[in-house]
């Protein structure tokens, strides 16, 4: 039994069908085709037999007749974007449609004016009298293609930007100079926005002055003028930003009050807008500033915010990294200095002896001269000889002192070409007396024609001195007539090798690495830094320091340094 509602629905449906049948019978179907906003053509056996107005408009044809007089190949370029020939691809697409009943695909079409444009094609089969007619619907997808392209470009740009940031961070990690890093950063940021010129400035250690960071596209004369300028409440964009610890936006440098005292400087820049943001440490201390410049007076739109954030973030990392490295270097230097002074302390007895020789002769000879001058008959020739001896001894004493002084004073390392044999000779000279004192005989086998190495003289002396003193110390318990210390230098495979061998207590090779750790010492009052510092010095010049056992008993310490490449050729 059907309900009243069901009866009602059935009646409505029948009425709808009757209305539709009526519409179709009056030729409305034709109008559906005619008036469709999509371009529709009918393809029968390779020929367009009909098309609608939308197709005519889309293809910019003069009229339906013109369009129908054309063959399908006139409406497409010879080759499709994927490289296939249009006619081949058309056959393929039609074949698929005939098989499946319909097919949708992208196509490059061509208007009558030659203009090529992308379309989405739908083919639908319409059976008619034992053959299949194809309904071809074309939709112009230029705009969405355009949008796709835009999106792709934008993604590429974003990837490039990210990669660029990664590259700058990599530069920091690899120890590139700060100015190189900041210049790369500035160039990267500038590439993200047309017409923008950027700069990174640093705040001086005393917090009062601007120091140049990087500004590859600002005029040199402007850059020089800014460098060293004071920061303050009315000091341009960057100076004020660093002073306030807040971003400063100047739309036009030539009229803004913040640039009032720096109008000439502003003119030097050749630019008008200058927006500056401070760069902070993690704890909120100002390190510098990042600025965007434009040729025209301009206010920010807000889209720059992200670029500014990235720029200040990375610049901050770079500057802080540089400061940390400098401090590390400074501390290492101080430590090495302390170690040298300590070694000199250990050599105090020897130094005293060496200096007292000439001093003793000076004092004695002078006293003799005084006596002679008090005699009746004065032999001036003899006095002159004595005075000459005094003068020579005076020089000798002063040389001993200056040799020691060069090791004891604070020293900023600098790389110069050095001959390792000469450095070895310096050190053997320094410890000569100490070795004697401990009854150690030093044997030297120093290469005559060594290639030079690139290193700091004082630091290399320090390393050799450390190894030689250790060797002497190691033979403390050895028989007095067995105390031999050998120092050798030789070229080896593109490096120069220095060796210090002793006949002391020896080392357990398995535990050799321990020796190089800080605070390792066998001496009662020792600091235990000598070998650790020596190794870090050698490594800082690209070399290696290590220990081996001495076949005849005792230990061998060796270090190698790369030979200067010019000389290897």
């Amino acid at each position, binding site marked *: 039994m059907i309900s009243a509602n069901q009866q009602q629905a059935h009646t409505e449906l029948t009425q709808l069908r009757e209305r539709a049948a009526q519409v179709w019978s009056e030729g409305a179907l034709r109008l559906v085709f005619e008036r469709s906003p999509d371009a529709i053509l009918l393809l029968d056996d390779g020929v367009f037999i009909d098309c609608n107005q939308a197709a005519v408009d889309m293809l910019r044809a003069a009229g339906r007749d013109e369009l129908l007089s054309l063959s399908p190949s006139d409406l497409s370029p010879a080759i499709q974007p994927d490289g296939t020939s249009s006619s081949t691809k058309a056959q393929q697409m039609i074949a698929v449609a005939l098989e499946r009943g319909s097919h949708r695909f992208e196509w490059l079409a061509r208007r009558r004016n030659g203009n090529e444009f992308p379309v989405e094609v739908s083919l639908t089969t319409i059976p008619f009298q034992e053959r299949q007619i194809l309904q071809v619907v074309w939709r112009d997808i230029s705009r969405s293609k355009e949008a796709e392209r835009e999106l792709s470009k934008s993604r590429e740009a974003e990837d490039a930007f990210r990669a660029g940031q990664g590259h700058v961070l990599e530069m920091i990690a690899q120890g590139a100079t700060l100015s190189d890093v900041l210049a790369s950063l500035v160039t990267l940021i500038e590439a993200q926005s047309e017409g923008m010129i950027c700069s990174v400035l640093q705040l001086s250690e005393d917090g009062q002055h601007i120091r140049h960071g990087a500004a590859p596209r600002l005029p040199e004369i402007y850059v020089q003028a800014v460098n060293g300028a004071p920061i303050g409440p009315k000091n341009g964009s960057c100076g004020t930003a660093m002073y306030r610890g807040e971003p400063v936006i100047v739309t036009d440098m030539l009229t803004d009050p913040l640039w009032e005292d720096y109008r000439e400087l502003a003119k030097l820049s050749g630019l008008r807008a200058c927006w500056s943001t401070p760069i902070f440490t993690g704890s909120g201390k100002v390190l510098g500033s990042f600025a965007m410049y434009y040729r025209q007076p301009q206010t920010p739109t807000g889209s720059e915010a992200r670029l500014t954030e990235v720029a200040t973030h990375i610049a901050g990392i770079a500057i802080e990294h540089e400061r940390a490295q400098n401090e590390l270097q400074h501390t290492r230097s101080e430590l090495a200095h302390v170690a040298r002074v300590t070694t000199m302390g250990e050599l105090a007895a020897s130094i005293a002896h060496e200096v007292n020789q000439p*001093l*003793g*002769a000076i004092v*004695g000879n002078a006293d003799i001269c005084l006596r002679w001058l008090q005699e009746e008959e004065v032999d001036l020739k003899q006095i002159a000889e004595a005075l000459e*001896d005094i003068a*020579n001894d005076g020089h000798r004493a002063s040389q001993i002192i200056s040799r020691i002084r060069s090791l004891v004073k604070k020293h900023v390392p600098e790389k110069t070409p050095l001959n390792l044999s000469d450095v070895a000779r310096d050190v053997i000279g320094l410890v000569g007396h100490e070795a004697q004192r401990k009854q150690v005989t030093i044997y030297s086998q120093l290469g005559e024609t060594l290639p030079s190495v690139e290193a700091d003289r004082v630091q290399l002396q320090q390393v050799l001195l450390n190894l030689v003193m250790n060797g002497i110390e190691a033979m403390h318990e050895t028989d007095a007539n067995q105390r031999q210390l050998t120092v050798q230098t030789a070229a080896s495979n593109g490096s120069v090798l220095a060796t210090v061998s002793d006949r002391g207590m020896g080392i357990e090779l398995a535990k050799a690495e321990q020796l190089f750790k800080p605070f390792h010492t066998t001496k009662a009052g020792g600091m235990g830094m000598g070998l650790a510092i020596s190794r870090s010095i050698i490594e800082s010049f690209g070399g290696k320091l290590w220990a081996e056992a001495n076949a005849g008993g005792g230990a061998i310490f060796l270090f190698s340094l790369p030979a200067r490449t010019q000389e290897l050729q």
Partner: protein
Amino acid sequence: MTEKPPVVIVVDDDDSFRNFLSRLVSTIGLKTVPFNSAEAFLAAPPPDCPACLVLDVQMPGLSGLDLQRRLAQVSRPLPIVFTTGHGDIPMTVEAMKAGAVGFLAKPFRNQDMIDAIKEGIARDRETRKQLDELAEIQARYDSLTSREREVFALVTDGSLNKQIAHQLGTSERTIKAHRAQVVQKMKADSVADLVRMADRLKIHPHITQKSA
């Protein structure tokens, strides 16, 4: 016989200090014999005149203290004045205990060095005198017959003629005759003198030197 003029032997590896010491020594009218190492000094013949050594304790090879030990073993150890560029107390004490004349740290007052040298030379003079005397006494002893030597030993030991006669199995008269010979040959002024000579020669009744 006039005494040979004394010399100062300077052993120091530092050339300029050695030259200065030579100059200093010449101001007191003495000659210097310089060496630049202990080994070089040992290779040379000992001086045939009163001498004093001025020696640096810290030289390469044989040190000054080692040399002192070596020299102590000879019959005429030369007096040593030590110098040092950097001495410590144990070193000084060791050197002085071993009989050094002085220990001076460089730079020192010239007068101190001169005084030490003079004392050293005086000591050496005395030593040489003692050695000469001993040689003389030894020569005299060497001229004694073996019998006379026996008598010499027993007389200086305090035995009476009678006892000696008994011990040696001869008469007292014979002993008296031997005794007179001994006194004459030894050129002794008195028995006490003879006894002193016996001491110097280390003669003892049971330790008579065999005749040559």
